[in-house]
C-alpha cells in the first residue's frame, strides 16, 4: 500500500487538520513508513490464533442503569469559545 500526496490531503481533510500543500509529500512519506511497518506485521502467520485484547484476563467493566452524572451545564460549556442560552454556538452548519 502506498500513500500519495492526494490521499494524505484527503485524510487530513477528514480529520479537519489543515496541512499546507508543500507539507503533503513529507506527510505521505511518513504514512508510508508507518504502513510499511504494519505490513511487515502482517507477515506473521496468526491462523487459528485468537486476538489478544488484554495481557491479563479482564472482563469489560459494567455500570448500573442509574443516573450518577450530569447537571453540570456551566462546566460542560466552560471551554466553549462561544455558548448562548445553554447551547454551544458554532459557525452555521448548512445541510
Amino acid at each position, binding site marked *: 500500500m502506498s500513500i500519495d500526496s492526494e490521499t494524505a490531503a484527503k485524510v487530513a481533510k477528514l480529520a479537519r487538520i489543515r496541512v499546507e500543500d508543500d507539507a503533503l509529500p513529507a506527510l505521505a512519506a511518513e504514512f508510508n513508513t508507518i504502513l510499511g511497518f504494519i505490513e511487515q506485521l502482517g507477515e506473521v502467520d496468526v491462523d487459528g490464533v485468537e486476538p489478544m485484547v488484554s495481557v491479563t484476563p479482564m472482563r*469489560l467493566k459494567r455500570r448500573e442503569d442509574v443516573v450518577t452524572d450530569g447537571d453540570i451545564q456551566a462546566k460542560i460549556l466552560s471551554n466553549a469559545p462561544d455558548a448562548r442560552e445553554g447551547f454551544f454556538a458554532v*459557525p452555521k452548519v448548512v445541510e
Partner: protein
Amino acid sequence: MLDIAHTPPAPKVIAGAKQDWELVIGLEVHAQVSSNAKLFSGASTTFGAEPNSNVAFVDAAMPGMLPVINEFCVAQAVRTGLGLKAGINLTSAFDRKNYFYPDLPQGYQISQLYHPIVGEGEVIVEMGEGIARRVRIERIHLEQDAGKSIHDMDPHMSFVDLNRTGVALMEIVSRPDIRGPEEAAAYVVKLRQIMRYLGTCDGNMQNGNLRADVNVSVCRPGDYERYQESQDFSHLGTRCEIKNMNSMRFIQAAIEYEARRQIGILEDGGTIVQETRLYDPDKGETRSMRSKEEAHDYRYFPCPDLLPLEIEQAWVDDIAAALPELPDAKKARFMSEFGLTDYDASVLTADVDNAAYFEAVVGGGSDGRDGKLAANWVINELFGRLKKEDHTITETPVSADQLGGIVDLITKGDISGKIAKELFEIVFTEGGDPAEIVEARGMRQVTDTGAIEAAVDKVIADNPAQVEKAKQNPKLAGWFVGQVMKATGGKANPKAVNQIVAAKLGL
C-alpha cells in the same frame, strides 16, 4: 408461538412510461433504548431537559474520560433480539465510526460494525387477514446517539445541545425483503409494537426515539426472484439511502417519490448513482446530501477504550425466561380464549397499553368477565370516546375497574344497554363508582313485572285507537314498547316489556 401459514403480499408494481417496475426496500431502524442513564455514562436520558444539562464529561468527550458500559442497555438489546427471534452473540465488540460534525464531540460514534450483539432474526408483518411478509433481520447493534444541532435560532450560528449525545441506540438492520411503501411503514409499526411490548424502546417518533433510514432500489419484474434464488445482489438495481425519517407517512411518501425518480432516470437511459438522500416533507421530494458523501469514509476501527463485550448464556436465558407475551401470541390468545374476531383482537393488541387495559377489564380466572362484551365496550365505547377527545388510552378518565363495573351491571341485568351508554358518559365526564351512580340516580333496570305491567296497562288504556290498529298489524307492538320505555325512563327491561306488551295485546 402461533405458526399460521401466511401468503406473502404481492409486490408493489409501478408502471413507468416504458415498462413495469418493482421496488426493493431494506430499512435501518434506529430505536432509542429505554433506560435511565446513557450507554457509556451516568448522565440522564430524560427528554426535554435544559440544553447540555444531561451531559457528563464522557459525553462531552473531555480528554482522559473513559466509557463504562451500562449493563441494562445490553440487556435491552438482548431482549429486543430475543423478541425478534434472533440469535444472540455472546461475544460482541465496539468499533469507532469516525466522522466530523459539531454535535459529535468525540469525533467518532462508538458502534458495533464487525461484531454486533444480535444476529439474524425475523419479523412477520401482517398486511391483511392471512397475508403477511416475513422480513428477515440481518443484525442489531448497539451504538451511541449523536447530539442535536439547531439551525434556526440564529442566522449565522448553529446551536448544539449534547443531551442526546451518548444515549443508547439499537440499529435494527433488515434484509431487502420489503416490496412496497405500505409494507415498509407496516414493518416499522410492527417493530415499534414489539419493542413497546418488550419495554425496550418507547417508540416515540415525534421525539425522534424511533427513526428509519430507508434503502430503495427498483428492478424489473422477475429480477427480485432471481436475487432470492441466488442471493446475488447484482440482479437488483443500485440503491439510494433516504436518511433519518421519523414518521410512517414520510417513510411511505419518500419511498414512493424515490422509486419514481429512479424509474425516470432509468427509462431515460441514465444510471442510478448510489448516494445518501434526504426527504423534504414540505416539498415532498428527496434530494442528494452531497455533503455526506465524502464523510462516508468512516475509517472504522476497534474501539481501544472497550474490551469485547462478553455475556453468559445463562444471563441470556434468564432474560428469555422473563420475556412478556408478544403481540402475535397475545392476539392469537385473545381470539382463542375470548372468541374475539381477528379485527377486534388486532385492535386490542395493536399497542401494549391497549392490551393491558383490556386484560384488566376482562380480569382473569373463574370470575373473569365475558371477553366479547368487554372487548365491545373497550373498542366501541371507550376507544371511540377517547378518539373524540383526542386522548390516548393512558389518558383515559375511565379506569379499567370502572369500565369493568359497567360491564358487570350489564351482565347482572341491572341496567339495559341503553342506560349503560348513559352511565358510561357519566363515568367518563364526572367519574365515580358505576354501581353507586346507578343506585343514586335510580338508573336500575326495572325487572319487576308488576311495575312494567302497570306501565303497559296505562299505555293501552290511554291509546285505544292504537290498540285496534295493533290488532290488525302486530308490527305496531313496537310502538307500545317504545311508549313503555319512555314512561319508565328507559329503565324497563326491554325483553320483559316485549313479552308483556305482546301478551296484553293478545298478539
